[in-house]
């Protein structure tokens, strides 16, 4: 039997729907607007005639961007950084987290502190910058002249992710490991055949965190990468924005589309791959936020 809702409950329900609808639309609107503005005609964009739907369709903003080689190279650079950076960080984090999860590890407390201290205290931007410069010289010295490898190896490691993995590994019952050992499994086999399959969802979450921080990384890539051909997408977008909002460049703008459309087209292109994989990764993303449950 369904109970009749009380008035106060009904009011609250209506308010919830109204509020959530408004908030969701606010979240989504900038992206829809960007899409519409990127394919609208020059006059419509420059005189702010677009509210929601595109006007005077044109696709030249996209076309000219697709013809730009730097755009494609920045895209491949970002894919490179995301792929290798995630593999490297994940490898280091899984190995480290596995070793730290073992009670028989000597100096376990010390190693943990070594990790956690970096979450409490960071040296700051300037020392980090000097350090990156020094390591870049070392990398160049041993013949790695592609600065992308410096970004892959040096940046994007997060102590929090290692701790998430460590806690997941600690949750695996030790009987299972013992059983595998009795069957003659080596350390590596135990890790790959027992632990990794049992902690799949945490590993997926951590992978996602690493991949997103790689895909989004801007500041250090902007500082450390010196040539156009090696710059990742985020840096390219920012530089393009600065170029296309500069009034000197705008004075000589004579394309069939507005300068703003070019910026919006760039935004749309960098958002689309994320939108495509978003439905598949959303559930892992939601799992990783239980920060409150982390124990020392």
């Amino acid at each position, binding site marked *: 039997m369904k109970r009749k809702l009380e008035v106060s409950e009904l009011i609250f329900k209506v308010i919830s729907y109204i509020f959530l609808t408004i908030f969701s639309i606010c979240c989504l609107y900038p992206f829809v607007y960007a899409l519409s503005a990127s394919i609208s005609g020059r006059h419509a964009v420059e005189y702010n005639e677009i509210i929601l739907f595109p006007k005077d369709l044109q696709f030249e903003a996209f076309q000219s961007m697709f013809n730009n080689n730097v755009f494609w190279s920045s895209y491949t650079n970002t894919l490179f950084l995301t792929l290798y950076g995630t593999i490297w960080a994940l490898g280091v984090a899984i190995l480290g987290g596995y070793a730290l999860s073992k009670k028989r590890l000597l100096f376990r407390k010390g190693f943990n502190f070594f990790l956690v201290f970096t979450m409490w205290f960071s040296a700051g*931007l300037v020392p980090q910058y000097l350090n990156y410069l020094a390591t870049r010289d070392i990398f160049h010295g041993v013949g790695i002249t592609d600065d992308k490898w410096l970004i892959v190896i040096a940046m994007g490691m997060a102590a929090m992710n290692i701790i998430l993995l460590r806690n997941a590994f600690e949750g695996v019952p030790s009987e299972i490991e013992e059983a595998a050992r009795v069957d003659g499994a080596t350390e590596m086999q135990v890790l790959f055949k027992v632990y990794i399959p049992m902690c799949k969802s945490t590993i997926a979450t951590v992978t996602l965190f690493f991949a997103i921080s790689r895909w989004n990384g801007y500041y250090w890539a902007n500082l450390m990468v010196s040539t156009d051909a090696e710059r990742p997408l985020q840096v390219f977008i920012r530089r393009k924005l600065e170029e296309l909002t500069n009034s000197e460049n705008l004075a000589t703008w004579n394309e069939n589309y507005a300068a703003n459309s070019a910026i919006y087209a760039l935004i749309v292109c960098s958002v689309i791959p994320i939108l495509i994989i978003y439905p598949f990764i959303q559930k892992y993303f939601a799992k990783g936020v239980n920060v409150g449950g982390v124990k020392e």
Partner: protein
Amino acid sequence: MKAKALDNYIIYNEETQTYEMDREQAVRDDVEKHRVMHMLKTILKDWRLYLMLIPMILVFLFWRYFPMYELLGCFKLTEVGVDVADQHYIGLANFYQLMFGNATLSLEFWRAFRNTFLLSFYGLCFGFPMPIILALFFNEIKSNLMRSIYQVMTYLPKFMSTVIMTTLVIMLVKEDDIVSSMGILSRFLSWIGIIPKEAAEAGLLNDPKYFRAIYQISGIWETAGYDSIVFFAAIIAVSPTSYEAAQIDGAGKMAQMRYVVLPSILSTIVIMLITRIGHLLSIGYEKVILLYDVETYETADVVSTFAARYGIEGSMQGVASAAEMLNNVVGMVLVIGANTIARKASDVSLY
């Protein structure tokens, strides 16, 4: 099976009525005697485990701890291009110059410190309650499909990079320039009369008055949906029978909120609040760097951007590292304090 110790290592086993050697005790004594040897042996036996640690240790040593060595620069007279070890100690002169120098530098530092604190503090006041409110509202949507739609839409901005997010913000509130009119958002805001038309035409991001509001609102837009997950998880853990019991007792919506929902999410709220307070001084520099401009330093400049401006773009590395050192040491005290309180309050440690 109980064994009675007769000698150091010889024990009498009552079950089988024989004397046996107590191997464990022998090992224990052996360990006492050869502690170091034993340690080495344990490491050797488990050498694979220690090998696994090495990449992690190297990465953290090289790129987290070696920068701390560079921090020595804050006690030195720094020169660009000179190794920090070769520079001359000048004691606390950099800190003195920053804190009591009374020149532009010191004024800018205190402004940056105040801005760092205020941006976080306003984030705590306005940004923190928003995910909780959202979670409460999500709980009201009983249709799974509708709720999923709302959730997918509100989590979405979190997936966008800082560059995309700030680019959108810049475009939405841009000034009226020579070829195109102002951003759609500032047009809307000046149309409904929240902001004066002149300010909207000059570009909201060029006016220090609006920076904090833009920073907070874009922050809410970006993270509120995603941050609501943890609160929502706490709310749906409440058993439906609790609501039913409250309803039978005649509790209205407000009473249900007060006596059923609030107690169930209170511990989560406290933990998240403590974490936020712990991170009051560790504000993300990327978003500020991408949004601020010379005109808005007054309200936008934070300690990290101050340091980046003087130490990375400029050449005053000593002063810049001193500024960040001050900020980060106070920040560390806050984080450790918050963690201790959280541990006391709920036996959940944050790290």
